[in-house]
């Protein structure tokens, strides 16, 4: 009996020993990804270097970095849903100048499961802004609402900024500027500076000490030319008393009605207004020097040449201001069919344009805005807006204004 007992006890412990040595190392399920990257077709003399590509698995936030000598990348990654970002140092010719910059692509959701997956990405010139970011221009209503009689009514133009992050941000210190150039111009500017600066004709700045104008995640900050209830003057318009801020122009003869209850933006450089057909564009960012220093050191003195019936005319000099490309957080390139001949800033600021109306004089544009698309909605209802530095794809043209109810 005792022998049997000892045998059983030994058996138990031998089994125990067997179990404890069982230490298998299985491999994670992986997928072979072939990524084809397309370069922009409208960049002249484009020369690309190696692609640095990062795959971020969205379930785990784990990152996998790769390099690709060509525009096709093969990568072995664990199964998952990936955001893929790529960057490449490039040179291209822009307005006769050789630009050294970066190409960039981002694709937000790529399902990578199974043995092999083929993916594609389109690249675009990368913005040079290197600040903290987070705000985007959500909407520009530049056409005016139009009257019941079909006339133009420009008193109710507005611009909406949006906190596209999951953290509260402060709008204090943000600037908005309208481009000095418009897209219908065929003028040749001397000196040409678009590879480094955005020439602007008006700048406003949101005041505050850095904590005065918080914007919660997924919320907007509305700037209006006249923050009054425009329904009273125009039945087709809307109530802009909901605006967070007004902008005023000192030299405007017919000032729009002022709402004393809505604070005014700082007018850094008069004259700030959007173009009624969108031929000038709006940029947004932060002035990275003092306002006084900016006004002193960032003057753009230029002249322009144009040719009419074979005769060349030169005009100037003119004075405006210029904003370094790397200060620009976001821009909305606007124009209209038939008038989009000339750039108003470098493609690294914004690659493509969006619009209201089908031609320059089209009154159908009245009451339409350009609105940024929603890329995703978080489970708590916060919308993430699309921002690929290409307004042609990021914006809904001819959109119904968000404030029209």
């Amino acid at each position, binding site marked *: *009996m005792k022998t*049997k*007992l000892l045998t*059983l*006890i030994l058996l*138990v*412990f031998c*089994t*125990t020993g067997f*179990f*404890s040595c*069982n*230490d298998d190392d*299985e491999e*994670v*399920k992986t997928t072979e990804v072939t990524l084809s990257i397309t370069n922009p077709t409208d960049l002249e003399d484009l020369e690309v270097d190696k692609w640095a590509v990062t795959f971020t*698995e*969205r*379930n*785990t*936030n*784990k990152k996998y970095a790769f390099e690709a000598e060509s525009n096709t990348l093969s990568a072995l990654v*664990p*199964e*998952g*849903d990936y955001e893929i970002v790529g960057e490449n140092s490039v040179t291209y010719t822009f307005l006769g100048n050789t630009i050294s910059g970066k190409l960039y692509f981002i694709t937000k*959701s790529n*399902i990578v*499961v199974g043995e092999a997956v083929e993916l594609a990405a389109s690249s675009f010139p990368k913005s040079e802004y290197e600040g903290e970011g987070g705000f985007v221009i959500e909407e520009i209503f530049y056409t005016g609402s139009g009257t019941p009689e079909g006339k133009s009514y420009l008193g109710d133009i507005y611009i909406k900024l949006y906190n596209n992050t999951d953290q509260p941000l402060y709008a204090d210190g943000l600037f908005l500027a309208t481009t000095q150039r418009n897209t219908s111009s065929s003028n040749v500017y001397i000196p040409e500076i678009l590879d480094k600066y955005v020439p602007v004709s008006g700048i406003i700045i949101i005041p505050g000490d850095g904590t005065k104008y918080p914007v919660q995640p997924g919320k907007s900050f509305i700037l209006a030319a006249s923050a009054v209830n425009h329904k009273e003057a125009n039945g087709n318009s809307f109530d802009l008393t909901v605006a967070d801020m007004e902008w005023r122009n000192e030299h405007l003869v017919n000032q729009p009605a002022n709402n004393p209850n809505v604070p005014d933006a700082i007018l850094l450089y008069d004259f700030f207004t959007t173009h009624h057909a969108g031929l000038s564009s709006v940029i947004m960012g932060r002035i990275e020097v003092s306002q006084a220093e900016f006004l002193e050191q960032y003057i753009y003195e230029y002249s322009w040449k144009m040719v009419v019936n074979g005769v060349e005319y030169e005009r100037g000099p003119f004075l405006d201001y210029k904003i370094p490309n790397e200060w620009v957080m976001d821009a909305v390139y606007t124009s209209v069919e038939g008038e989009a001949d000339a750039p108003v800033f470098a493609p690294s600021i914004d690659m493509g344009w969006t619009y209201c109306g089908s031609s320059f004089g089209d009154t159908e544009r009245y009451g339409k805005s350009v609105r940024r698309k929603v890329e*995703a*909605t*978080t*489970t*708590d209802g916060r919308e993430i807006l699309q921002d690929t530095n290409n307004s042609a794809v990021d914006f809904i043209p001819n959109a119904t204004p968000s404030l029209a109810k």
Partner: protein
Amino acid sequence: MIKDFRFIFILFLVSIASHAQDSVPVTDRLYRNLSPVVRFSSATTYNPGAKVYTLQPDLSDLGIVYEKQTGDAGLTQTGTAFDDYVLKAESYARKGKHHLWGKASYAKTHTDNIKWNESSDYYTIYPYVFADSTGGDNLTGERYDFMGGYAQNRGQIAWGISLDYRALMEYRSVDPRPNNNTSNLVFHTGLNRKISGKYAVGGGFFLRKYKQANAIEFSNSLGRKSSLHHMTGLGSDAFLFANNETASLFNGKGYGANVQLLPINGNDVSATLAWEHFSCEKQLNINQNLGLSSIDEGKYIAEITYLKQTGKHTLGAKAEATYTDRRGTEGKFTKNENNEYVKISSETQYKNQRTDASLTFIYQHRDSKTSWHTMPCISYYNTNESHKATSRRMNVCRMGLGIQQGMAHAIKKHLIDVEANLGYVQNLSKRVELTGLAEEKGIFKFLMHDYDYLSSNAFSAGLSVRFDYALPQRGIAVYIKGIWNYRKYKKADSDFLGAQLGAAF
């Protein structure tokens, strides 16, 4: 609702406790019941039909218990300190071929030093707990346990059933505020047949249903400093759902079977081989309960006990081993065009293979009034924990030596029972790889705390003293019991004090 529940519960306690009556003096029954020989084999844990072969005397116990543990030894996610009040009743009665037993208890608990876990029942659902980065003290709980069993001895055949239900509510009144409700229902049954004058063979199975609703709220959402995480093991978490899904549901089920060799008179060889399976899915309260992860656990248990009683001497040995293989499967998700999460793949990422084994010897000398026993034990523990996607692992292997000495003495209406124990745990091997975790992160520190706790050499000592006094003519003894236990690890220690006041009859 809770008050009604408590009322029904107290009625249940009293009815169970008042059931058992016996003509044998209560001190004699207590003297027999306190013997470690009675509980040496755990065969009845698996097979309620085995209850008919036990040496357990008829006895009922109604008591109130206070327990308090302080110190920082323990797993961070379970908390290392607590104080509990428990009202409990248990009873065992035998009448002819019928055996009836039951237990019920109500506990009010407070647990402190919990971090990186706001779910309840950690050992049931790990590693997929819901956690916040703050954690804290004073997790308040109310626990209700009910267990009832019946066994019948029909000569050649014996059978039994038991039903065990536990409900637990846990919450905290300051941020972060978990609000957890759990329920656990287990049904056991077993059937035995005599094969000789000394032995029976038996077998049984069990079914289990487990549920937990687990939510975290913050009353001060603006000032919230905690981040919320659905943990996936060894410090990893489901990043996609961090901070935005604050409610989860655990839905589990289990089953198992066992075979046994049972000595009919409680002595000689008893052997149990058992297999248990438990699976539990963690669901998020979105998309009609999205299945985020699941665990699958297989447990293999072997126990062999030998007891030999000769006159006043009882000699015995018990070898038991449990191998547990827990696997965790995690889903990966994307969002469809309706903004709903859709599972795109799932894979086993987490593994915990654990072996617990022990060899215990017992010698008891017992006469009609005085008994003493010595119970040396050697134990072995090995755990291999790994998370595949993050390439993290934690392996610990240790061995323990312990001894328990006990003495019981009955004098007329009095009974005194004293037990003392000493133990030492020696680490045999250890390895930890926490790939990708920065040392300054709080989560790294909690994992290292757990690793130190599991892998450290440790010393333990304990003492319990119980004094019973039989009331005249009523067959009732009132008792008071005190317990002290101390554990000392390299970087942590733990002090446990318990006091119990009750009546046995």
